[in-house]
């Protein structure tokens, strides 16, 4: 052995020893020093939490008829995590699955990709760690094909689940009031702290609108968690622990399926008539119980079938069914649509005038036109009437009387140079009747409407003056019609110079519910209910009680206490009488011709509001019976015509349905909504 070999063998001894020591040192670090850390990771590694969804509660009407319930369905879902571990990213599995479900692999891939701002529907908006449902209308045969060959369908889950069903009791849909469900997004999951405690998890659907959203916590229940041990391929090797799901409670509402159906039906009929006349209308109908604010019916047109939400909706489907071309049927016009109320608003203006000193016994002129400043404001079709009292002004819907009141009040407030603290009686009275503020109904998406006032004018002017002042200088050269261009330029000049001022025309327009005044049908129904009940502004309430799955009552939802209307009792009774005459001798006499007013006398007011570029918006706001009133009913139809000819007939049909006139069975027994909770069994 040469000496180099000997010395290098010694080096090799040291090297082998050093390397082995390195290994031992590293083992010490991993297993002893950081052992606990890796134990924790390992525990995470080998268990999976499977969320067992709770069965969602039904939504029932006041008689216990289900408006929404669940049907059990065989749902096929795809677990992305499992697919992504396969060599071909699950391509083969999806291909086989597409064959069974008679669709294409591409379609399934689209459905199971994750939504993001750049990924349009169809896509999965929920958590990527939960199985993604791809079909919830699988037949038992298709389901068996999948279940029998688990080796061919690794990552595909077929199981019985509860999905939402809409039985349309008595033909009632109430789509917008019920709302819809959507998978909870990862963002919402992340935002919610203490997730497991509140019960939200990726498989959960969350109420996105309507009652489903407001009472989500009650309806949802508590999902169970099954913690399973899994191997590296995600195959379940055993159950580690399990907490049972707690089914959601049922929601009993004040809605009455029969009345709701009648409202929807009469809206549909009137819409049909309006369409025949060439309009493209939207419509809404509200029925309130006047004493309590219980919402007996709440309908909106255009409407849609909420079953489109189950099983995922594609972008095309969404656009076709729910987009602007279909009139955006998701929007509940009754609470989220705001329109100028026209003459139905005069109850507020009358109360304002009386409070401001105009006598209820006075006789006032009603010419065909009245000069407000330099501009002539006219009656409907400029019809002149002999001088009349305020009762008559309501019955025939005289506008010029209210222009006069508004103009005189405006002058008293200092006209263009307003006094400090102007009285603005009509603006303040509108607020008293609840306009310009949300009613507080237990539904999401309610809008406040708008009562224009001096502050609003100022802020609106500030946002528009730049454009107006530019137009005042440049004019409208692009408009060929020179007189029209000159008119627009003049308006631009006026708006630029004094658009921030509360002008006489603003006051006059407000007095008859025109111009910048916007109300929701629900606000109007509540205002009329306040007259009907003798002066209480109620809070509309859709839900009545939360009932546990076993039928016991979890909590009753009593309507909130209303506020007292700051209007003189005499004025209210005066208006009640005037409104009662509208259906017998006034603007709605034609629509109520032949109605059994001896049995139930309907009081109400027509409204015909001008809409720029469309035909008039038709209104009829009412309550009945005129004495000892029970219900307030409001119907609104846009792009239609007069309230008397388009809205009032719909309201008449609703009353006929409620009380069982015109050979119809009564929707409400003795015309009363049930006071007791229905028996809920399921």
């Amino acid at each position, binding site marked *: *052995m*040469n*000496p*180099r*070999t*000997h010395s*290098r*063998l010694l*080096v*090799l*001894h040291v*090297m*082998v*020893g050093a*390397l*082995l020591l*390195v*290994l*031992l040192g*590293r*083992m*010490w670090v*991993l*297993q*002893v020093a*950081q*052992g*606990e*850390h*890796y*134990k924790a*990771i*390992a525990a995470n*590694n*080998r268990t999976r939490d499977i969320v067992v969804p709770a069965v969602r509660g039904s939504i029932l009407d006041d008689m216990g008829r289900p408006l929404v319930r669940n049907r059990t369905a065989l749902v096929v879902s795809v677990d992305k995590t499992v697919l*992504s*571990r396969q060599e071909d990213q699950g391509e083969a599995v999806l291909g086989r699955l597409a064959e069974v479900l008679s669709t294409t692999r591409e379609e399934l891939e689209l459905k199971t990709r994750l939504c993001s701002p750049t990924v349009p529907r169809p896509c999965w908006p929920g958590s990527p760690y939960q199985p993604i449902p791809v079909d919830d209308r699988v037949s038992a045969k298709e389901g068996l094909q999948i279940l029998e060959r688990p080796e061919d369908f690794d990552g595909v889950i077929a199981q019985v689940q509860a999905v939402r069903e809409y039985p349309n009791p008595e033909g009632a849909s109430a789509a917008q009031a019920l709302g819809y469900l959507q998978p909870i997004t990862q963002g919402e999951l992340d935002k919610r702290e203490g997730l497991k405690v509140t019960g939200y998890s990726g498989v959960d659907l969350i109420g996105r609108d309507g009652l489903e959203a407001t009472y989500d916590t009650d309806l949802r229940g508590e999902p169970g968690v099954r913690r399973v*041990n*899994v*191997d*590296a*391929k995600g195959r379940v*090797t055993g159950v580690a622990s399990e907490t049972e799901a707690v089914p959601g409670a049922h929601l009993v509402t004040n809605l009455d399926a029969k009345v709701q159906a009648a409202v929807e039906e009469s809206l549909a009929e009137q819409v049909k008539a309006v369409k025949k006349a060439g309009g493209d209308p939207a419509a809404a109908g509200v029925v309130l119980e006047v004493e309590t604010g219980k919402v007996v019916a709440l309908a909106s047109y255009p409407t849609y079938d909420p079953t489109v939400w189950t099983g995922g909706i594609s972008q095309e489907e969404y656009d076709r069914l729910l987009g602007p071309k279909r009139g955006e049927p998701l929007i509940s016009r009754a609470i989220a649509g705001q329109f100028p109320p026209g003459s139905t608003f005069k109850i507020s203006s009358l109360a304002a005038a009386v409070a401001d000193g105009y006598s209820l016994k006075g006789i006032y002129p009603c010419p065909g036109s009245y000069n407000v400043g330099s501009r002539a404001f006219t009656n409907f079709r400029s019809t002149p009437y002999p001088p009349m009292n305020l009762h008559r002004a309501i019955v025939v819907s005289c506008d010029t009387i209210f222009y006069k009141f508004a103009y005189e009040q405006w002058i008293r407030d200092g006209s263009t140079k307003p006094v400090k603290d102007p009285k603005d009686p009509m603006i303040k009275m509108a607020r008293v009747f609840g306009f310009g503020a949300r009613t507080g109904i237990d539904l999401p998406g309610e809008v406040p409407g708008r009562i224009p006032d001096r502050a609003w004018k100022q802020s609106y002017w500030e946002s528009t003056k730049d454009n107006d002042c530019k137009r005042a200088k440049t004019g409208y050269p692009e408009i060929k019609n020179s007189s029209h261009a000159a008119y627009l330029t003049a308006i631009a000049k006026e708006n630029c110079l004094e658009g921030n001022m509360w002008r006489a025309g603003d006051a006059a327009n407000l007095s008859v519910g025109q111009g910048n005044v916007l109300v929701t049908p629900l606000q109007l129904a509540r205002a009329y209910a306040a007259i009907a009940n003798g002066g209480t502004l109620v809070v509309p309430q859709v839900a009545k009680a939360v009932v546990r799955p076993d039928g016991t009552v979890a909590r009753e939802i009593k309507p909130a206490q209303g506020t007292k209307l700051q209007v003189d009792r005499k004025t209210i009774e005066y208006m009640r009488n005037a409104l009662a005459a509208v259906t017998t001798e006034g603007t709605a006499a034609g629509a109520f011709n032949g109605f059994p007013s001896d049995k139930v006398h309907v009081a109400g007011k027509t409204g015909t509001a001008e809409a720029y570029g469309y035909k008039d918006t038709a209104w009829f706001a009412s309550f009945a019976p005129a004495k000892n009133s029970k219900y307030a009913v409001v119907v609104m139809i846009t792009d239609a015509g007069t309230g008397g000819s388009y809205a009032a007939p719909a309201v008449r049909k609703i009353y006929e349905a409620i009380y069982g006139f015109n050979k119809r069975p009564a929707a409400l027994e003795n015309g009363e909504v049930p006071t007791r909770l229905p028996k809920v069994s399921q």
Partner: protein
Amino acid sequence: MTTLNERRAWPGRAVRRDSVLRRLDWGLVLPVVALGVISALMVYSATRAGHRGDPEAFLKKHLLNLGIGAVLYTVVASFDYRLLRAYAPILYGLSLIGLIAVLTPLGETINGSHSWIVIGGGFQVQPSEFAKVGLVVLLAMILAEPRDGEVGPGRKDILVALALAGVPAALIMLQPDLGTTMVLCAILMGMLAISGVAKRWTLGLVLAGVGTAVAAVALGLLEDYQIARFTAFVDPTADPRGAGYNANQAKIAVGSGGLLGKGLFQGEQTTGQFVPEQQTDFIFTVAGEELGFLGSLVIVVLIGVILYRGLRIAVHASDQFGTLVAAGVVCWLGFQTFENIGMCLGIMPITGLPLPLVSYGGSATFATMIAFGLLQGVHSRGRSL
């Protein structure tokens, strides 16, 4: 010295007082037996969950492999290693034929490497494992040649050695099997150094090796997954589902074992088969999880004892050829052990190398047992210890 006649009659000699078996190096045999027992338990633990039809299938084959390995050990140990010098070129040539055969349609791809020849009946051979034996013997022959080790090998010997090592290394890279190529390099470098080449050669070769590695990456000679594995080795969390997945899962399995382990057959990570190739390349994770730090320590110590036994045999060999054979075996098994356990611990990149004697796999077990047989053979005929 044994004559040809005596050698032919070896079964009859086996019982004689001065027989090879009587001169067994118990310091080598006992740790090998102990490792064999541990390896059987580990292979069983790693495979019984994944094969519900016959949980013992792998165990049975592994025991059979160990049995065949023991026979090979005995045969090689009783063979006079000095005669191997004459057979070295034949052994080397056979291993080359095997490596070439793999590249023909006879070869089979398993786990991304085209390293296997299927011989039917569920058996397959991995010639690259035997190429390690062939290389050790051939290099020992060439490098011990100059005046029987009186002086270190000259330039010509070194270049011949490089060329002869380069052929199997290149063939194995074609499979591609980076791990085995690295082992061949370790054997080559180690044996060159031990044989007593001048320092400048050792240094120069190390630099050339580094240069080749850089060039291989730069010129795209390595497969993407091989580079990815090396990148993942630097930061395994960068892509835990991709190349870093193995490294991460291995660390989790070993780390979660703690000091005492979860108990034999009680490893949840093992049962759940979170670490891929658990019975072969990642067998150490099973020991790490189930036997903990103390149990894995036993494995490392047993291998350490074997390696030191090998070094001792190298020091006390009766000739330079024996020294180089023993040293070559130590370099091979030492490097392979460090690389294998190192990758399970996340301090070495992931390559497909088995843990000597512990991992499941016929060819690897046979080659390792032959190597032990060589050590035993050198020991039996070495100077007294």
